[in-house]
Structure formats: C-alpha cells, structure tokens
C-alpha cells in the first residue's frame, strides 16, 4: 500500500464522479427527505463501513475544509480513525475532533451533542435508507408509497407497538417526517438524537452507498418524529450522569466494569465529554 505508484485524485473520487454525486446532493436538498438514486461507486472500504458517507464527503470536501469523523459519538473508534485517515491521506485536509471547529462532520449512529451551527455540514452514514423497508421489502412498492405519501403502514406499525408494549418500540432509526412531506430514516441514530435534526442550522446529508441513495435535510427544516397525540414522541432519558464529566443531558454509553453486574455510564460523545472535563478543570484552577 505504501509503494502505490498510482496517483489518486483529490479526495479519491474522480471529478466526473464527484459531479454526479453533487447533482444528486443538490436534488436531495431541493426535495427534503426524498431518496435520490445515485451511481454509487465501489470504494476501497467495505459496504456497511460508510461508503455512502465517504462518497458524500469526498464530493463536497475542499482543501480548506476541516473534517471530523465520529462513530458511536466517538472520534477514537476504529472505523472513525480509519475514515479520518483516509481523507487525511487522499485529500490532505485538516482533521479535528472538535465539533465546533469542523466544517464537515461525518458520523455513524450519532449526532454530536454540541449544537451545530450555520455553515457546518453533517454527513450521515446510512445502512438502509428506506424507512418503510422492514414493512415492505420491495423497492418498487416503497417508491410508490412515497410518491403517494401513503404512510399508513408506518402508523399501523407504531400503533401495534403501543398496543403490544405500551410504548413505541423503536429506539433508533426512529422514523421522521421531513418538511411535512417525506417520511425519512434518520439513519440508526438513537431517537435521543432525533430532536437535533429539527430546525438544525447545519446542512444534513445522508449517504447510503450499498443502497445507492442520497437524501438531505436543508438547514432550518422541520423534522418531526412520528408519534400520536396521546402517545407523543419521548426522548430517551437517562437516570445516570456521566461518570467522567457529570453530564445529565448527553447520550450515555453503558460500560461493564466487572463481572458482578458493575456498570458505569459515560458520554458517548467523547469530544463533548472532554470539553466539559477541561472546562471543569479550568474552573477549579
């Protein structure tokens, strides 16, 4: 791999491919929540590892951008490290773990706790872009359902959850409705993160490589988590606080610390946790 004599284009993809992806992105932004088919390329990392997000990032990144990559909220998980290294190598861009400093944040399964701002872009890696897929396996059917805004099956599914469990039993990849039109899968983020999609000042782009779909939520767009009047959407609440920084407002990972049932809870967003700990330390000094 070191003795690679073949020069690759900036950010790996050739310019024609980037143009094709950018067209899909523009269309996606024009029709919020609509899944735009695109000619997904084979990437040098496996399907399921974020090839959609990587292609979106490759198509939008410029030499001036500052890139942050997280997986499960953390900058230090193996896949995040690998993707960050990929762009550091192929695009030679500055990378960061600081959410506020990044111009592009590529993520798998989380939305950063630090609120995103105008001008930032959040790129989601998406495994199954179709929110109706587990109710209707056929693409021919689901496309028609979207075209007709025929979302009855989704409401029936949520209703059946309530009838069976007393709750909507979807805790991640919780379906949303974008701008009052398309039902959209927010990717497998915990439903804890769903409210962050609504009226977000940052542009949110979703890339599904294996399924060859791109969709988008433009800045300041309504994103509503599906619910019922008598069973309103509820954000997951934790009864614990982060063991490291004491946060009670962040998504917590449960860490098994021994084989006797010992547990501790820590922030899933490592940058958020580090910042809070640094601030505490400063305050103490």
């Amino acid at each position: 791999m070191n003795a690679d004599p073949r020069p690759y284009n900036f950010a790996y993809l050739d310019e024609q491919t980037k143009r094709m992806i950018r067209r899909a992105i523009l269309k996606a932004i024009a029709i919020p929540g609509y899944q735009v088919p695109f000619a997904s390329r084979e990437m040098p990392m496996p399907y399921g590892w974020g090839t959609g997000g990587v292609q979106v990032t490759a198509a939008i990144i410029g030499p001036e951008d500052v890139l942050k990559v997280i997986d499960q909220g953390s900058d230090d998980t193996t896949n995040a490290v690998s993707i960050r290294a990929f762009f550091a190598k192929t695009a030679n861009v500055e990378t960061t773990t600081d959410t506020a400093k990044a111009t592009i944040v590529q993520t798998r399964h989380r939305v950063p706790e630090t609120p995103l701002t105008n001008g930032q872009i959040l790129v989601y890696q998406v495994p199954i872009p179709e929110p109706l897929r587990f109710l209707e396996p056929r693409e021919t059917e689901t496309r028609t359902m979207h075209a007709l805004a025929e979302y009855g099956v989704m409401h029936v599914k949520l209703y059946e959850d309530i009838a069976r469990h007393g709750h909507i039993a979807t805790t991640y990849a919780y379906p949303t409705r974008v701008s009052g039109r398309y039902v959209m899968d927010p990717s497998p983020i915990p439903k804890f993160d769903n409210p962050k999609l609504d009226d977000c000042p940052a542009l949110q782009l979703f890339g599904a490589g294996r399924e060859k779909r791109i969709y988008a939520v433009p800045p300041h767009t309504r994103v509503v988590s599906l619910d019922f009047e008598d069973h309103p959407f509820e954000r997951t609440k934790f009864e614990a606080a982060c063991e490291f920084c004491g946060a009670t407002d962040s998504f917590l990972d449960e860490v098994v610390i021994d084989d006797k049932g010992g547990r501790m809870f820590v922030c899933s967003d490592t940058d958020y946790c580090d910042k809070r700990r640094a601030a505490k330390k400063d305050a103490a000094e």
Partner: protein
Amino acid sequence: MYVAVKGGARAIANAHALLADKRRGDRSVAEIDTQQIDEQLSLAVDRVMSESSLYDREIAALAIKQARGDLIEAIFLARAYRTTLPRFGFAEPLDTGAMALRRRVSATFKDLPGGQVLGPTFDYTHRLIDFGLAQTSDPPSPAAAPSAADAAAPRVVDIIAGDDLIERSPPANDGAPVADVTRDPETFPASRDARLQTLARGDEGFLLGLGYSTQRGYGRNHPFVGEIRFGEVEVEMVVPELGFAVPLGAIAVTECQMVNQFKGGDGEPARFTRGYGLVFGQSERKAMSMALVDRALRAEELAEEKIGPAQDEEFVLSHCDNVQATGFVEHLKLPHYVDFQAELALLRALRREASAPPPDAEAAE
C-alpha cells in the same frame, strides 16, 4: 479505563502489520508468486475476474495473494481498483460463434457441426485425492487435435433457430445505450442488459443455489444445456475517429445457452425459450447457474406463475452481489453500542412497567 472498542490508530496499524505477517506465513516456506497463482490456480483467477468485472489476470492474481486466498476479499480488492479506472467506451458485441474453442459440449445433440470438444474438464474424473501431486509433477504433454479447431462450430441455438423452434434473440439495437450497473443505480423492472450484467458479477454460490432451486420445483423451467462453449473471443471497439471497429485483443469466456420449455399460444407457434450465461474465463458452474436464473427471471415476461425466489427479480438482483452482501453482513462487527444502549433502556423500561410497582429498585442500577 475501558478501551476495547476505542482502539485508535495504533491498534489498527498493529493489526494490519500482523495481517501482513500472517499473509507471508512461515518465512522458511517459499513465497507464492503471482505468476504461480495465475498459472496454477487459474480457475480462482477466473472467478475473481468474473465477479469483479475486470478482465485482468495480473490484478486478479495479485488480489488473491493479498487476500490470502479469500476470493470474495480478492473480488472486492479488484473492484475497488476497477472503479478508479477511466472508461473509454463500449466494445462491440462479442461474436461467440467465432470463438477459438477450447471446449464445447452440447447436451441436446449427440453430434453437431464442429463436434463435441471436451477440453480441460473435471467432468468424468474420479475425485480421488492424487497423492502424487504432493510432490512436484510433470505431466506429459496433452494430445493435440489432428486438425486445427478452426472448423466452423456454429452456436447450437443458432442451429435450432434455423428451424424456427426457439425464440429469436431480441434484435440488437445499435443505437440504444448499454446499461452499466457499475455506473447507474438499479431500477426495477431491470432491463435485460442490466440483469445479465448483475448476474455475471453475482456470487457464484448464490446463483448456484438459486439455479438449483429452480430444478427442484421453485420456478421450474425444464432446462437443457443447448451448449456450453469456452475459448477465446476477439474484443473489438469502434473508434469514432476511425469509423470502424478495431480489435483490442482476445479474452477467454465461458458461454452457456440453456434451451428451456416452450412457449406459444395466442396464434404464436410453440417454441423453446432461452436462458443465457456468460462469464470471464472458465467457469461452467457459474455460466450454467446464471443461465438458469436468467431464464427464471423471465417469468413475468413469459407470463409464468411466479412461485420461487429465483423468479423474483428484486430479490435476486438485490442480493446476488457478494461484495455488497459481505460488506453489510460483516459490518455487524462494527460497534453498535449506541443503538444497543437505546434498546437496553427501552427493554428495562418495559420490564419495569410489566413487573409490580417497584419499591425502590432504581437505586440498584
């Protein structure tokens, strides 16, 4: 501190170094050469070329070496290389009737123009471990055909078509754009070119199982092997500046034409129908499976009852790609603890509510 999944850059680099070491194996054993792979594991090279849609023996052999013999991993490597290659244009349709035959068999006619040519085949070998191969071998030179194998060997389906007993191939439309499943997202129903491309790079094992299922009643279509031929064909391309086709070289392919149960009615006389398979190199198993599945997928077009998975276009075409499949299956190895945590929280809440009003169980957590 808990660090198991937060491996970081150093752990990744170390894991890759360990992989490279394992790939090389015991240093006292001679390192395998990519030429040896190409020459002596040539059917593995053929499969990698086929399923990566890249006719390049050197790249395929190197990919097999790099992948430690894991062929799906090798296919993935070759595809990720292929995707970066510039595309000059589309070749002219191959004339497989003009193939330089190395093997050609028909199960429908005892003898036919051009004859049956057995060629290099495992068929009729006894599958007894040849312990002699554990040592170096130097087999005698094979017998050569008395006359050059250039005698005309028309394709069997063309012979049958002469009597109008089999459906015509759809007429070629030179002006129509050619599908490229590696450059366009699939749509359903798929065009025939897109379907055949997808099957040609589909997983051999998956298509074998599906083809087999049609023989066992899940979408039966009564196949006969009209012909299997393997050999070299010329690839030609029209260069716009020249205005005529120029040869680019020869590639080895295996073609299978299945002749299937007839169809007629509505004033049309009954005719056999076709299923088609074509792969790079020599792989009769894959070419035959592809032909069976191609025919099964024509159920809708031929107004047949759809009862088997092999007849379901979305099911087959969406799941036959092994690089996609292995990626998505294996991605389950990636951390999912955020989603799992969300599920845990809900499950605990459900159980708490289901049990009698808890006195003060919260503190235990």
